[in-house]
């Protein structure tokens, strides 16, 4: 079977075709005939810097995939041949990724592809959605009425975070860099946009929220400038979260562990239950009064 391998760290010219033996599914595994593979920035970071594979090893990149189950291993219970699936699995060097014709995956990490989604659409979803979901709900515990600032709100992860936060009932502001991206962020649910090239993000956030900053800042850029702005934009009791693109993301995701990096002081603790309750009574009620409900809009 054919696969594209990164032969060594470097520029895109390091990719080469390889003919490899067709993999076989082991116990509890699926052999998937891939139809699409989604690209993420971590792909080119791994290509440039090298993956988690031993030095000198050729790697198949790409953690997002979608395809059709061709065969199942012993003791599989959730899928049969012919099922359409999508997943985030492999591609960081420890396990082959999805720039290939076939992929073997533990059935516990695969999801059934909804009929309304094409393979391309399904392959675009996993990593960005996992990143946004874990950050917003598992780490930041956002709730209706929160003010949420999404850095790069029209970006790959950001535009998903905008929609998830909006659907959770939060008031969402997004940083953007062009009028087109501002329009997109608003279309997806942001009630405010901030041009980080021309505006002071922290000041604009505080002006928008009408209080002392956002409850939650979602920042996957984790760049020095955005991190500084994120820290200044959040409330003292709030949280600032970012995905850490240099960390062992595949291993963490396989265990449903979210990766979190604060701009200033490590992974912040979520507000205490008591603090959260106080915030709910005061800030959220006033938020709703000033901004109205954000629910009921389509994605």
């Amino acid at each position, binding site marked *: 079977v054919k696969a594209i391998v990164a032969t060594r760290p470097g520029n895109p010219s390091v990719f080469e075709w390889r003919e490899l033996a067709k993999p076989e599914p082991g116990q509890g595994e699926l052999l998937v005939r891939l139809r699409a593979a989604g690209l993420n920035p971590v792909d080119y970071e791994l290509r440039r810097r090298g993956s988690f594979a031993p030095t000198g090893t050729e790697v198949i990149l790409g953690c997002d995939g979608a395809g059709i189950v061709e065969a199942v291993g012993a003791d599989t219970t959730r899928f049969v041949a012919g099922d359409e699936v999508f997943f985030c699995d492999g591609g960081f060097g420890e396990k082959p990724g999805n720039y290939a014709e076939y992929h073997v995956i533990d059935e516990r990490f695969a999801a059934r592809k909804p009929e309304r989604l094409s393979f391309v659409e399904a392959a675009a979803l996993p990593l960005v959605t996992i990143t946004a979901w874990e950050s917003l709900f598992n780490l930041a515990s956002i709730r209706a009425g929160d003010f949420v600032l999404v850095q790069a709100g029209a970006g790959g992860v950001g535009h998903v975070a905008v929609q998830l936060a909006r659907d959770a009932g939060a008031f969402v502001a997004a940083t953007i860099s062009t009028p087109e*991206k501002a329009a997109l962020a608003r279309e997806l649910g942001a009630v405010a946009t901030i041009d980080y090239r021309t505006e002071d993000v922290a000041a604009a956030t505080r002006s928008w929220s009408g209080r002392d900053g956002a409850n939650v800042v979602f920042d996957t850029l984790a760049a020095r400038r955005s991190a500084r702005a994120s820290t200044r934009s959040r409330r003292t009791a709030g949280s600032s979260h970012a995905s850490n693109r240099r960390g062992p993301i595949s291993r963490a995701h396989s265990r449903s562990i979210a990766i979190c990096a604060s701009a200033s002081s490590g992974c912040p603790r979520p507000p205490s239950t008591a603090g959260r309750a106080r915030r709910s009574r005061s800030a959220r009620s006033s938020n709703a009064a000033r901004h109205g409900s954000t629910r009921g809009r389509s994605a």
Partner: protein
Amino acid sequence: VIVGPTYPLDRVADAHRALEAGDVTGKIVLEIE
């Protein structure tokens, strides 16, 4: 999720160049025949 340009698997290098350039709106996806 907003899907941007798609590329065949054998053009993965071009797909990486487009992703790194950052001038693409939407997710880049490889289509595998």
